[in-house]
């Protein structure tokens, strides 16, 4: 008895002993301090709009080469000996597309100002026959608009100083294009995933259907259904007139025996067998028994659309072609081996049978794992392929035209023909991006509104636009499913940031750490899967020579018994079955191990689907994924030591990936994991640890302080409103000439920050000002969310903003030789300059800095009266001119801010005049806090009438410019507002109250506070040192008693929004249309 006790004791001692670096086994695991630093490291490598940039980079570096490889030959119908081959394609760096220019370098800012396109030449290497020789040359075939900050952009990898020299803002995220001077974004498009089976039921009609949208390279899309109809299963496809009984379809695909059909679909499950029997009988009833009969049956129902009228082919041939190329086009058919396609159709059928039996087996089409995001790169690739094919067709006909001529003076050189091909590609790109119409007849694609003008109302609105996802389907339908918040959105799509109204829930935003994958070649992955013991079922998927994979093909002809065996898991790569495994867990674990060792792309995902007995490997583009910390044996692999290295700057985020400390999880793979939110939550089963909980919010929602204390719709309102805030928009804001620009004269960084604010640089380009706010009712002019401003604050510059408006004109040269001109101010009979011309200088333009009053002329342009007269042949100088001046129309005077004179690409003189108005807040201007609480200014009160606290601080402060320097941090700067307390109970924005407290604590202690989601400064922690000083008893300024109420006089950030502000002056008759029209 004593001995075991002693042993026990020994064991206990051992556990308690300090055996490794002074740490014992029972010591608490040291938590990883500052693991959130992985986030800035991630953003440093990837940037805020990495998804756009990665996708564009993939297009210009890899995809474009694949497209050219697929369309690389141009031959002639006339001369059979002629050929032209593209051997390589490269996209250069953006340059100036003007012949005479010496300095070819161009910056995006120049393009914006001069209304030109930021584009780079596309150079191809061609080989072609010239006479008897073969020649190789490099040709420029057009220009491709370049995404800013992509690998082809001149801004990439530049230091802040270099960017400043290029008049570019280092905080600008890039990811957009500059086309004809406007900034255009290709929004992320959300789609249902391609090449995957989706099973749905319609309970009303009692239909179960499995559908699959096939998409092969080149964008040819078709949708195939396997659906029930009156208890029987049919295959339905657009290219066939009527539904084909599934047994006939399978027979046509080469599975002739009924037994095999039954095994491949129903397997050995009795329930499925009986459900399927009716469908099996159908074929027999229709008299279809052999493959040939089946093909004849289908062939007679195939829609034929043939352009070239050839000899009519027999029906079975039509069927064979349709089945091989149109139906489920993504499943390859090599040498008429339909085996893999048959298995695919059988799988679809089986999924239908499963869903008929158990309605839980349907898929959720709103599940984020079933979605793919289409980005700029993919859309441009499609556009390029279309344009390139047309280019080649045009080239071919041009070559044919020359070759047709019987006698030529010189040897035919295709190079010269290419030189005269015009700018089909260039204009195609420019047209598509500037109009947003992706109309590609070749790929049956007709999409409008793909691109949008980048909103530059504020820094956040530009950033918010870059992370926006628009849904392709059902915008007007009143369905709730796609609009609802999906649990699978966690960590990848922001739960707060969505618009209200029509597009609610359909337009989404990416979360902070979301990454969207690009295509990864699947062939090495398949080979790897075979190496890891997957038993092949078919070789259809591989384009590799057979001998490479031959050793693994010993049971390539697996039957239904094997596929649906109780312990067999089917291995799919990108939705297509490649083989079977009996040890899915081991296989998946080994596969992951290899991925963590970086033997393959980190974006390949693998997961087990236990419902379908399947292992899915995905390497396709457009999947949504995010990084997490790997946990092994209950400990996160990232340790404090790693973070210390990160802080020192010796390692980057990529090192974490390479060493297998962090990995990307896509939404499907997340289902296979057990992710701990905090380190303390780690249990033995945990596989991963979140990097930081607040990354589940997007860039815009991340700006809200203490959002976790707010009622959720308030955060959503704030996401819409934060984008309207006026402030600084970019470091180069004063060098830009935008159509409309709102700037705040004195923007301030927020007192209560969040980590997201620092990460995106919102503290360096802030919008809004910190205001001293009294939460109290005052005067009755503050009901219904109105707020009251202190006049002295406004005098001192609170909320002062500037509106800059662009005015453009062209000084044109006309085809008949005449041209516009600028004239100096005309004199009247007294030799005086008329009032409206008083700011025009000698060059016919208004002087910079001059005040422009309503009705003033700021560009005194004159045009020839006969500009459109093409028969005119006289002296251009002698033509009569008429005045075509630019007149200032706004009812409020402005100042000339900037005048720019330049040339456009087609050599017309371009004049831009920027006119500035400086405005001070007035009644009716809209203000908002950061919690979706907006209000308009209802009253402006003199400083002496405002309530004041013990220290004389009223909401409306007491500093003038001098005090910035002479008084320390405890100065309450003088900006302020009174807000009605009735704004709180119904809105339940507790976060706003906490922000008030934290802001005041910060002011009193001279520190900035943090209000990061799921963290931030604690109320107890921040306010404890100040004690009850957080509430003030306010004196009434306009009466003589002390106010009876206990009031909050606190510091809060008020963001000014004058976005909806009407320029003063001028009334509109709203009842005009009520008047009798006679």
């Amino acid at each position, binding site marked *: 008895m004593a001995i075991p006790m002693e042993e026990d004791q020994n064991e206990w001692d051992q556990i308690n002993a300090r055996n490794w670096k002074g740490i014992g086994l029972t010591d608490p695991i040291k938590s990883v301090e500052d693991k959130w630093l992985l986030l800035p490291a991630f953003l440093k490598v990837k940037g805020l709009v990495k998804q756009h940039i990665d996708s564009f980079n993939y297009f210009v570096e890899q995809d474009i080469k694949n497209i050219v490889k697929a369309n690389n030959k141009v031959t002639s119908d006339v001369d059979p000996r002629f050929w032209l081959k593209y051997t390589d394609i490269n996209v250069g760096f953006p340059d100036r597309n003007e012949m005479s220019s010496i300095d070819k370098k161009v910056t995006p800012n120049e393009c914006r100002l001069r209304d030109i396109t930021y584009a780079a030449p596309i150079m191809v290497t061609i080989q072609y026959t010239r006479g008897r020789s073969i020649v190789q040359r490099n040709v420029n075939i057009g220009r491709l608009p370049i995404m800013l900050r992509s690998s082809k952009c001149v801004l990439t990898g530049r230091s802040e100083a270099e960017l400043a020299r290029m008049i570019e803002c280092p905080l600008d995220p890039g990811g957009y294009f500059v086309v004809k001077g406007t900034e255009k974004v290709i929004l992320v498009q959300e789609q249902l995933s391609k090449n995957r089976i989706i099973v749905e039921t319609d309970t009303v009609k009692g239909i179960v259907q499995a559908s699959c949208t096939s998409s092969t390279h080149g964008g040819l899309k078709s949708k195939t259904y396997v659906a029930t109809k009156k208890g029987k299963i049919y295959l339905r496809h657009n290219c066939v007139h009527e539904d084909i009984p599934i047994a006939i379809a399978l027979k046509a695909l080469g599975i002739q025996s009924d037994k095999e059909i039954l095994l491949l679909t129903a397997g050995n499950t009795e329930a499925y067998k009986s459900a399927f029997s009716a469908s099996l009988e159908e074929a027999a009833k229709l008299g279809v028994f052999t493959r040939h009969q089946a093909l004849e049956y289908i062939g007679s129902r195939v829609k034929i659309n043939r352009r070239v009228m050839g000899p009519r082919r027999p029906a079975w041939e039509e069927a064979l072609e349709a089945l091989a190329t149109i139906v489920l086009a993504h499943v390859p058919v090599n040498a008429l081996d339909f085996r893999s396609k048959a298995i695919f159709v059988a799988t679809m059928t089986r999924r239908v049978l499963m869903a008929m039996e158990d309605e839980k087996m349907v898929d959720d089409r709103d599940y984020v794992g079933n979605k793919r995001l289409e980005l700029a790169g993919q859309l441009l690739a499609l556009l390029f392929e279309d344009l390139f094919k047309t280019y080649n067709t045009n080239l071919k006909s041009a070559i044919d035209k020359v070759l047709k001529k019987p006698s030529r003076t010189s040897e035919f050189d295709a190079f010269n023909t290419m030189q005269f091909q015009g700018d089909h590609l260039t204009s195609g790109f420019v047209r598509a991006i500037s109009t947003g119409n992706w109309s590609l007849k070749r790929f049956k694609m007709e999409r409008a509104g793909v691109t949008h003008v980048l909103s530059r109302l504020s820094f956040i609105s530009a950033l918010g636009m870059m992370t926006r996802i628009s849904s392709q389907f059902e915008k007007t339908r009143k369905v709730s499913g796609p609009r609802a918040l999906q649990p699978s959105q966690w960590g990848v799509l922001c739960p707060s940031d969505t618009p209200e109204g029509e597009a609610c829930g359909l337009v989404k935003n990416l979360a902070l750490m979301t990454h969207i994958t690009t295509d990864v070649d699947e062939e090495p992955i398949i080979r790897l899967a075979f190496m890891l013991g997957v038993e092949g079922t078919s070789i259809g998927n591989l384009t590799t020579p057979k001998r490479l994979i031959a050793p693994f093909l010993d049971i390539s002809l697996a039957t239904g018994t094997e596929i649906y065996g109780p312990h067999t898991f089917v291995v799919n790569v990108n939705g297509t079955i490649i083989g079977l495994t009996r040890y899915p867990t081991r296989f998946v674990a080994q596969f992951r191990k290899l991925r963590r060792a970086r033997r393959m792309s980190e974006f390949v995902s693998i997961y087990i689907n236990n419902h379908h007995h399947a292992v899915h490997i995905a390497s396709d583009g457009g999947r949504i994924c995010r990084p997490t910390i790997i946990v092994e044996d209950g400990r996160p692999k990232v340790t404090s030591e790693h973070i210390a290295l990160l802080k020192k700057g010796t390692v980057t985020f990529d090192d974490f990936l390479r060493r297998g400390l962090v990995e990307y999880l896509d939404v499907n793979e997340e289902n296979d994991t057990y992710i701990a939110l905090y380190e303390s939550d780690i249990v033995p089963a945990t596989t991963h640890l979140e990097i930081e909980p607040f990354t589940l919010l997007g860039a815009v929602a991340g700006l809200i302080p203490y959002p976790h204390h707010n009622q959720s719709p308030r955060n959503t309102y704030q996401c819409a409103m934060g984008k309207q805030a006026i402030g600084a928009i970019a470091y180069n804001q004063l060098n830009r000439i935008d159509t409309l620009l709102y700037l705040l004269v004195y923007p301030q960084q927020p007192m209560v920050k969040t980590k997201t604010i620092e990460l995106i640089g919102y503290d360096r380009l802030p919008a809004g000002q910190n205001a001293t706010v009294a939460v109290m009712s005052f005067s009755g002019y503050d009901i219904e969310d109105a707020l009251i401003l202190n006049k002295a604050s406004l*005098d001192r510059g609170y909320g002062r903003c500037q509106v800059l408006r662009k005015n453009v004109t062209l000084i044109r040269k006309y085809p008949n030789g005449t041209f516009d001109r600028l004239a100096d101010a005309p004199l009247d009979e007294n030799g005086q300059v008329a009032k409206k011309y008083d700011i025009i200088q000698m060059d016919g333009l208004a002087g910079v*800095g001059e005040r422009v009053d309503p009705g003033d002329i700021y560009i005194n342009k004159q045009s020839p009266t006969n500009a459109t007269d093409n028969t005119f042949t006289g002296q251009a100088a002698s033509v009569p001119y008429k005045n075509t001046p630019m007149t200032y129309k706004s009812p409020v005077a402005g100042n000339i801010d900037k005048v720019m004179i330049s040339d456009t690409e087609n050599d017309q003189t371009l004049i831009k005049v920027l006119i500035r108005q400086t405005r001070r807040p007035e009644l009716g201007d809209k203000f908002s806090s950061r919690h979706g609480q907006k209000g308009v200014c209802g009253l402006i009160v003199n*400083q002496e009438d405002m309530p004041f606290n013990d220290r004389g601080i009223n909401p409306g402060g007491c500093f003038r410019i001098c005090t910035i320097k002479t008084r320390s941090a405890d100065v309450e700067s003088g900006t302020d507002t009174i807000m009605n307390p009735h704004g709180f109970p119904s809105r339940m924005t507790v976060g706003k109250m906490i922000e008030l407290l934290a802001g005041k604590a910060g002011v009193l202690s001279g520190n900035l506070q943090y209000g990061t989601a799921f963290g931030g400064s604690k109320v107890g922690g921040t306010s404890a040192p100040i004690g*009850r000083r957080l509430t003030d*008893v306010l004196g009434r300024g306009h009466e003589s008693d002390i106010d009876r109420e206990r009031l909050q006089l606190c510091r809060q950030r008020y963001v000014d929004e004058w976005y909806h502000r009407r320029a003063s002056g001028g009334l509109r008759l709203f009842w005009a249309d009520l008047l009798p029209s006679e």
Partner: protein
Amino acid sequence: MTTRNGIDARRLVGVHAERITDVSSTDYPGHYPGEDHSWDLQKFQKVRREERLSQRSIEFDLVGVDASIANAFRRILIAEVPTMAIEHVYVWNNTTVIQDEVLAHRIGLVPLNIDPALLEMRAPNETPTDRNTVVFRLNVECTQKPNAIKGSKNPDDLYINHELLSSHLEWEPAGEQAEVFRTCPPAPTNPNIVLAKLRPGQAVEMELHAIKSVGRDHAKFSPVATASYRLLPHIIIKQPIPPHLAEKFQKCFAPGVINIDPRTKAVSVDKYNVRKDTVSREVLRHPEFVDKVELSRVRDHFLFNIESESAYAPERLLPEAIQIMREKIAILRKAAEALLNADGAADGDVQMADA
């Protein structure tokens, strides 16, 4: 008459954890039967008044008046004592990054050291004269320093005039001004206010006209950074504080307010320093001090604090305010007398001053 710790209980405003009691004053004639509370100058003069003065601010106690009087002074100080500030800016050249109107606004806010008594108010359409306008010039250009330190990032080493400061304002005497302002030439009160940052090649050339006006017109004419008052705190310890809680009790108040006897650990309120207390009510949060202490403020004891940010010396501000108040009273009295003297049928309207 009940007294609480030597102060008439009627003079106290109660400060409780969640509310404030006895806000309104009651010491006016007719409120208490048999008591006369009419204004008594002797009584007012008997009360102690003290002052503390620093370069730019003054603190003094105003005791024994109604809040309406104290508040009137506060309001006049903020809004009605005139000062000089730059109102008109003529820009000849401005190549800085700061726009003309923004720079003009900033310059307008610079407090000027010009005694307003020496000048007259200028009516809106009146022509500027040496009696109502003081002219300044601003003529600054930033240039590269000839032998700048290589590699330095400090603008002080690299450029001349890289900041446009308030000290760059040059007074331009007109007419009799040279004589009038001989002893104290007009200049900003603070020479170190940064108005704009410059870089080589940027220049500012402006003519600035300062006029006299009041804070109600624009905050830049307000002579004070802040002028406000608070009420004298009054702390009543109702039950002795146990010695072991003495320090905790002390920490609930502003430093110096509570004295602890080093031997007995007995707690007492410092008679003089009690004015330092913020009446934060921290002490009311702790259950151990419940019913042991009562917080209050003296309703007619105003601790005034005035920070001058203008040509006025801080001690001059209150007399100025009183002067303005007297002028107002004079106008009001005249109007009232005119009303009394007027025949019932005659037009009873009396021209008030610009109030």
